[in-house]
């Protein structure tokens, strides 16, 4: 199920209630991995048949724990975590990027209780009471974490638009597996796309960061 198809169906029946689309977004927390995402789109299609309950119209208050700070906003319940971070918090949290908005690229990756998720597939209301860590929370230009430092050192970025996603994914992965092989790093990155072509150096940076963290 692609977003465009969804869109075209909508166009054919312009009179229908557009807020139904919120269920497509409401597929819960998805681990980084396009395959899983595809699966969930199918499930989401089934969900779509249900009528929209009234209580999800209008705006609701969300309290999010972002990088250790409590952040509050009013959003429509269908608003994704990604769009909430970027469009509704003040000041905005724009490290996670919006690239595909449908769980296929990894640029929006954030950590929910330490686990990488595509924040374009998570509703803000579902992210309450969880620890949200974005790339900004991993380090700063003056105090980068090992992965961030290794990315700069190994030139694992060009335009940099995919970079927050890769950095976040790899930072989480190295916590799980501090001593990965090249093959494991590749596997860990398979949910993230880069168009400029930084992959070889992303792998090098990940391995270098692992080494630096062990030292």
């Amino acid at each position, binding site marked *: 199920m*692609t*977003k*465009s198809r969804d*869109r*075209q169906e909508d166009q054919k029946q*312009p009179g*229908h209630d*557009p*807020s139904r689309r919120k269920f497509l977004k409401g597929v819960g927390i998805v681990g980084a991995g*396009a395959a899983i*995402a*595809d699966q969930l789109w199918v499930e989401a299609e089934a969900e779509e048949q249900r009528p929209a309950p009234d209580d999800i119209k209008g705006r609701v208050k969300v309290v999010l724990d972002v990088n250790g700070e409590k952040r509050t906003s009013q959003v429509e319940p269908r*608003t994704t975590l990604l*769009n909430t971070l*970027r*469009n509704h918090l003040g000041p905005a*949290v*724009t*490290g996670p*990027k*919006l*690239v*595909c*908005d*449908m769980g*296929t690229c990894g*640029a929006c990756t954030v950590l929910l209780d330490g686990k990488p998720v595509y924040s374009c597939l998570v509703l803000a209301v579902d992210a309450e009471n969880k620890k949200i860590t974005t790339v900004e929370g*991993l*380090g*700063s*230009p*003056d105090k*980068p974490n090992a*992965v*961030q430092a290794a*990315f*700069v050192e190994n*030139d694992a*970025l*060009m*335009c*940099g*638009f*995919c*970079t*927050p996603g890769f*950095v976040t994914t790899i930072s989480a992965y190295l916590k799980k597996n501090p001593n990965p092989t090249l093959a494991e790093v*590749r*596997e860990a*990155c*398979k949910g993230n*796309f880069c*168009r*400029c*072509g*930084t*992959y*070889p*150096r992303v*792998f090098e940076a990940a391995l270098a960061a692992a080494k630096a963290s062990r030292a």
Partner: protein
Amino acid sequence: MQQQQPQPQPSPKPKKKIRVPRVVNGVEQMVEIEVDEDTGPGWGPNDKHTLLNHKITRVDGPKKVTGMALYTYDMRLPGMLYGRILRCPHGHARVTKLDTEAASKLPGVKAIIQGPLTELRFAGAPVAAVAATTPEIAGDALRAIKVTYEVLPHVVHATDAIRPDAPKVVAEENNLQEKAKNGDLQKAETAFATADAIVEGEYFSQRVHHACLETHGMVVDYRGGDSASIYASTQGTFTIPGDAAKELGLEQSKVIASVEHMGGGFGSKFGIGIEGMFACRLSKQTKSPVKLMLTRYDEFVMAGNRSGSWQKLKAGVKNDGTIVALTARQYRLGGIGQGSQAGQPYIYRMGDTYREVYALHTNEDSSIAMRAPGHPQASFAIESLVDELAYKIKMDPVAFRKKNLRDEVYHRQLDRGAKEIGWSRRNPVAGGNPGPLKRGMGCAVGTWGGGGNNQCKVDVTILQDGAVYVAVGTQDLGTGTRTYTRAIVAEELGIGMNDVEEHIGNSKLGAANPSGGSTTAPSLSPSVKDAAIKARMMMAERVAPLLGNPKPEEVVFSGGNVSANGRSITWKQAAAALPAAGITSHGVWRADLQARGVHGVSFAEVEVDIETGFIRPIKMVHIQDGGLPLNRLTMESQINGGMIQSLGMAFYEGRVMDAQLGMQLNPGFGDYKLPGSLEMPEMVPIIDDDDKREAVIGIAEGCIIPPLGALVNAVFNATGLRIRDLPITPDKILMGLMNTTVISRG
């Protein structure tokens, strides 16, 4: 009274005329300009630099890896509205009715405007645009707009569009338009008769997408009044204000464009585009800032694609390896646009040649410039053909290429690449390796211009406290522009990278060319160097009294010190001798600091599973010359990027159009396959240091061209299958194997 003697006029500086590339909408055109013949100091030998030609980490790296770099997509202004574009779902249609009533009543919808097109010639053509308080509500509004279309006949496949009875893309016009005929067909036919072997083939290359991760778009900050600010994801800061001013009804000088960081362009981001036009109009109508970034769907269906190609080639070769003739029929597949394709026989000598070039239109959005426009297409076809000729006369493909390439640089690069990939391990019999997992190797050769032009004006300012700024309006696409701009100044002044700050990406700053055709580095770096040299001389004059009055050119700037006559002062002490306001130098372009013409050679090794058709890229090598490498680290990254994008074209990417619906079936990353981490082979980017030119040349395009041919030829060497239809996917391998005896050889 004494008659005044006529003053001797200062003789005008001697000038010379040169031809330089200028990029219009991403496509290079050559123009003639005048430059001074007498120039200043040069770069010096390539191996004598202290910063340049070293590995310098990106100065914008720390911000980008921590999410602190602000892109256009990240801009959020008070009261900002979000724009979205409604698109035509038909391959060819006219809007007969646009009912926006329901949409305009949705809470949060602030404006709806109709698009400029009366006839929509492709699925995805813009129909209307909305501005709303959130992107979600803007999406609701699109779905609530009721459009009635008069659906017209469409044609989306080139092989259908060429038929005389095909629906017309433009009424009254042939879908097939002749563009050029060169050479002598009669001579070519005569030469074919002298050939020992003839190879004929028909080659298709698909339409691939730029797929910039940051979609096209801009934030227009106009709240009424006589000025506006625009944040644009663009390859040309200075391509924005003019068109935006027209849309907003303002003076061009009152529109400031900025692009601090941008998330990829690859040739697709020049000018404000249709999305920028909508953004300006929506902002003007609502008197509010409007952000209009394309969705990923939008990006696929209308933000650009590389022209497809369909080429029919025929060549004749003698047993000694001499190619005697080539005939080529080249169709440029640019949708409603003209398409692009380099002329055959591309870079080879092929005796008597004849070619016909056509544009063949379909109901698809116009192709636009994409990294080396037209070149990978031509290179893929000719490299496949050349390879086939070599096998046909049983000559080694490397030796065969040398035989038919005049330029010695290719010869040394071919030798180097062959060594690097381990060409001697290659089985000369195509498909000849045992077992179901068959390895093979291939190679290919490419070229590009990469020269600069005289558009960049750079200021270098040194303040009394020692701070140094370099300012120019240019943009950094991820190519490392910021980093080398800073490095050139730091090196010239003998200070560290962190002692210089660059200001770029703003149309208030000095003019700069749009980044297309590998022209940025050769246009910008000479101007930066010129400004830096002038700043150094100005400073040398000021500090001379502290150093025993040396001539300015005798003052040495090195290691954070300024010295002459055996005396030395620190940078800070030297800066303190400057006037209170500091000094500013103005740099202009110098033709002698850049050059034109790059060479690149690629080798590839792949492994093909003939039971499943699955291709595993094993290793890719690309050797690239480029005169003086400004920064080895970013140059290698860019070579990697070229190889990877070429890899995508070889095996993974391609727009799929539905003939019945007239629309793209894979407008998203779920269905359009980009090369990902699992597909990456071992990559070896090699900077050709045997190129001793002390001049800067752009290399971005050079390295995307030949990897494709190398990969395709590696598949042939592995399997014995000559697949002439990109991308080479497993199904094509399996289909091909069914018609050959390769399996039984295993």
